[in-house]
């Protein structure tokens, strides 16, 4: 047996029994409620903690979006329901600075508290040990800390909401000097500080997760589980974790620099000679001599790779779900893995495409443009291979499959519109317009969020031992698919008409005056989209109690997580594993059943 096949778990964590131990009978360290469900070191419990917390944050971020949509449809009118909560002082009418806070918080919540934690926190934690055949993570205690470091982050972001004078109001990108000099955004005093601290805690939390994921995948694979026998979900999660490892320190450093600018007047990002609110910050004791563009470079050096953290695991899940429910091997396994690595590699040298209009040397823009356009290549390869997977398949239209297909359909839109943004001359016109808003929502909401729904429908039976209702799932899918396109598609055209993002009331401009009816249509689609999620909520919680009980492998899938009981007990596997082939052996011609699990030697 070659080294790559070497079994053994050299990094086996303390207190975790070796695979082969029969867990139903060993009761020698029964844990109390708190250690079992609250401060748990079990990766599955931590995964579920991330799932529940992430879904609550999703609702919060979604409500912010509704408030934004109300203002864009009916500016400066009393907002029903939410208005009195958000803007009690004005009787429920959005204020200009309140609007700025809304979109800042919407972006921050959705990226740092919803999509990243749902993809990596939830499914990274839940799936990695199960799919590679490990009893737990390499560092279970660090894993627990990773979840609990998220909470100071949540506390800080909630504090920034309620901070005196209003929340952070510089956008989720927090560009200085608006974000660093208090006089520039009156009121956003501690709001902005809490926001920066929150990001730091979230970063620490992600870092702990990322270290764990990479170590676990590298060191704790079951015997025979070579890298090229890993499910693509694991490839996506591992590459996303590597991105976090390399990029997060930069964001953490940059956030501290900005915090120092605000609290100690360090002046990293404050240029000499600015005059804000008729006062020179220098006369108030601020240091100067810094540069606002420095922040943009540091911020995007993290946040562009972060965009791929938001989508690579989703691509992995979709690949797995498509293959299982299409009863067909994934088309082009290695190109799929390489293209994810390609996206990640290129992802590190394209941060400048957020800065084409920033005043950065335009010659550098040409380099960033070429690198950015080339990212379309691995993305296209992925789409072709997903189509290849569906060709000649035996598709089961389950809820999980429907959402996975939706991901492919929507990712095509989000990917293609990116080419306009990458092209510097076209970007001169469309930069910061609604076509950009359409683009990233097609990737992150219509893409990643649909993949998260698919993943929930697909792995719910493993998590809770019961299946979700297919009938409610289909209803959820149909309504979500229609309304989300109602929300985001016409934003392309709004962008072409030149409509700027982040404008509280665009209709004063002659250029935009005629766009209000379209915005009203979009807003009503958005309200419907949120309301429709009731079918998901009912299904999610209802199925935990009333769902059909399932056995180990309800989907007849090949990968290792389906070898465990549903839900898996402490230590995961109740027998010794050996892996003989890749995870996509569906429709195998001579096999007795139409799939051959990874632990079965026969027929492949």
């Amino acid at each position: 047996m070659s080294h790559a096949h070497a079994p053994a778990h050299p990094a086996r964590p303390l207190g975790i029994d070796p695979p082969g131990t029969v867990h139903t009978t060993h009761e020698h360290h029964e844990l109390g409620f708190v250690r079992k469900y609250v401060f748990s070191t079990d990766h599955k419990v931590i995964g579920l903690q991330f799932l529940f917390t992430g879904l609550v944050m999703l609702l919060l971020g979604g409500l912010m979006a509704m408030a934004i949509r109300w203002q864009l449809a009916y500016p400066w009118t009393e907002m029903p329901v939410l208005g009195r909560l958000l803007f009690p002082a004005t009787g429920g009418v959005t204020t200009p600075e309140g609007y700025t806070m809304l979109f800042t918080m919407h972006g921050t919540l959705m990226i740092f508290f919803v999509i990243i934690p749902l993809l990596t926190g939830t499914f990274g934690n839940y799936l990695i040990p199960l799919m590679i055949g490990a009893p737990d993570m390499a560092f279970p205690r660090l894993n627990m800390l990773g979840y609990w470091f998220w909470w100071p982050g949540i506390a800080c972001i909630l504090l920034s909401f309620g901070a005196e004078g209003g929340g952070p109001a510089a956008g989720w990108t927090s560009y200085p000097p608006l974000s660093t000099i208090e006089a520039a955004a009156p009121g956003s005093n501690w709001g902005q500080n809490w926001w920066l601290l929150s990001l730091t805690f979230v970063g620490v939390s992600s870092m702990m997760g990322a270290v764990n994921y990479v170590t676990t995948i590298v060191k704790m694979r079951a015997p025979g589980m070579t890298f090229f026998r890993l499910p693509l979900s694991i490839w996506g999660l591992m590459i996303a974790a590597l991105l976090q490892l390399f990029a997060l320190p930069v964001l953490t450093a940059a956030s501290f620099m900005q915090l120092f600018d605000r609290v100690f007047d360090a002046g990293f990002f404050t240029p000499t000679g600015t005059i804000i609110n008729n006062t020179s910050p220098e006369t108030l004791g601020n240091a100067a001599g810094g540069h606002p563009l420095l922040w943009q470079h540091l911020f995007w050096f993290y946040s562009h790779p972060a965009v791929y953290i938001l989508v690579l695991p989703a691509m992995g899940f979709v690949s797995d779900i498509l293959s299982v429910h299409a009863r067909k091997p994934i088309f082009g396994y290695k190109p799929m893995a390489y293209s994810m690595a390609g996206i990640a590699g290129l992802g590190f040298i394209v941060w400048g495409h957020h800065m084409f209009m920033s005043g950065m040397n335009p010659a550098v823009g040409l380099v960033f443009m070429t690198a950015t356009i080339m990212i379309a290549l691995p993305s296209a390869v992925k789409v072709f291979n997903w189509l290849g997977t569906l060709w000649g398949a035996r598709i089961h239209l389950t809820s999980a499959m429907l959402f996975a297909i939706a991901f492919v359909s929507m990712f095509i839109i989000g990917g293609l519109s990116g080419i306009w943004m990458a092209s510097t001359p076209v970007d001169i016109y469309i930069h910061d317009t609604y076509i950009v808003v359409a683009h990233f929502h097609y990737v992150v909401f219509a893409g990643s969020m649909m993949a998260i729904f698919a993943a929930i429908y697909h792995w719910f039976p493993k998590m809770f031992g019961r299946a979700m209702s297919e009938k409610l799932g289909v209803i959820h899918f149909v309504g979500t698919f229609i309304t989300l396109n109602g929300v985001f598609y016409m934003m392309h055209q709004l962008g072409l008409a030149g409509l700027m993002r982040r404008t509280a009331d665009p209709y004063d401009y002659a250029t935009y005056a005629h766009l209000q009816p379209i915005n009203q249509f979009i807003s009503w689609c958005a309200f419907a989209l949120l309301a429709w999620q009731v079918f998901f909520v009912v299904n999610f919680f209802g199925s935990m109690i009333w769902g059909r009980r399932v056995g180990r492998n309800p989907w007849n899938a090949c990968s290792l997580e389906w070898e465990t009981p549903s839900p898996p007990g402490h230590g995961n596997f109740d027998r010794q594993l050996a892996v003989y082939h890749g995870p996509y052996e569906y429709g195998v011609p001579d096999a007795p059943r139409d799939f051959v699990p990874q632990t079965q030697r026969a027929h492949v």
Partner: protein
Amino acid sequence: MAALKHFLLRVVVTLLLLAVPVLGVWTFTEADRWGLWFPPMVSSYGGSIDKLFYLILWMVTVTFVGTEALLVWFVFRYSKKDPTRAIFTHGNHKLEMVWTAIPAVLLVIVAISQMEAWTTVKMNFPEDGPYTREKPLMEVYASQFDWRVRYPDAQGNFTGADVIEVPYDITVPEDTKVVLRLKSRDVLHSFFVPTFRLKQDAVPGMEIPVWFEATEPGSYDLICAELCGWGHYKMAGKIHVLPKDEFDAWLAAKRAALYATD
């Protein structure tokens, strides 16, 4: 009954997926009629930007319709209840080569085709006309939440008693390569003139040169395109393009008014 239900589900899903390319393309063809398309184009280089947009639009449309159509067909065709097994294949090396190489070549062509327009707008500043990087027509100064334009004195100085300063309204000559120096007093702003297809951030501490040549007289919206604080949404300005002789007369009158008030 179960078979009927399954058929209905197939039809619904297929129609939904089919609606994506059909309605997707339709909204693009109808957008102009709904006023959801580019505003008029009145600058010398705007046409080249629009042309590149349409070039990419064609490529994107073909790819979009092609891939979505395959998806619709595969989902409809292969979701039929069928007791036989799927086609058993793990991929095709030749196919991978083809669908990697062809997009690669196309994307390189796209990248190269963009470069000329970019260098024209952002890098190659006029050298032969009345205004150059060193001797701009004006300074545009952004601050929360207004635009100010300064025309230099006869010697080209931007300081001193003879500088003309006008808030909100920028007046420029038609058919002339105008160079301006973009500055910010406080935070980031962005100088966006949709009809010129022109955008450039204003950065405190930097003086960024910007040029354009307006081809039609008229008044156009100047919009701040970078979040600059609570009043960002109303940081509106106007650019007035006057025929050359009218512009000269306007500037002379401004200068005269300057001395009249002294």
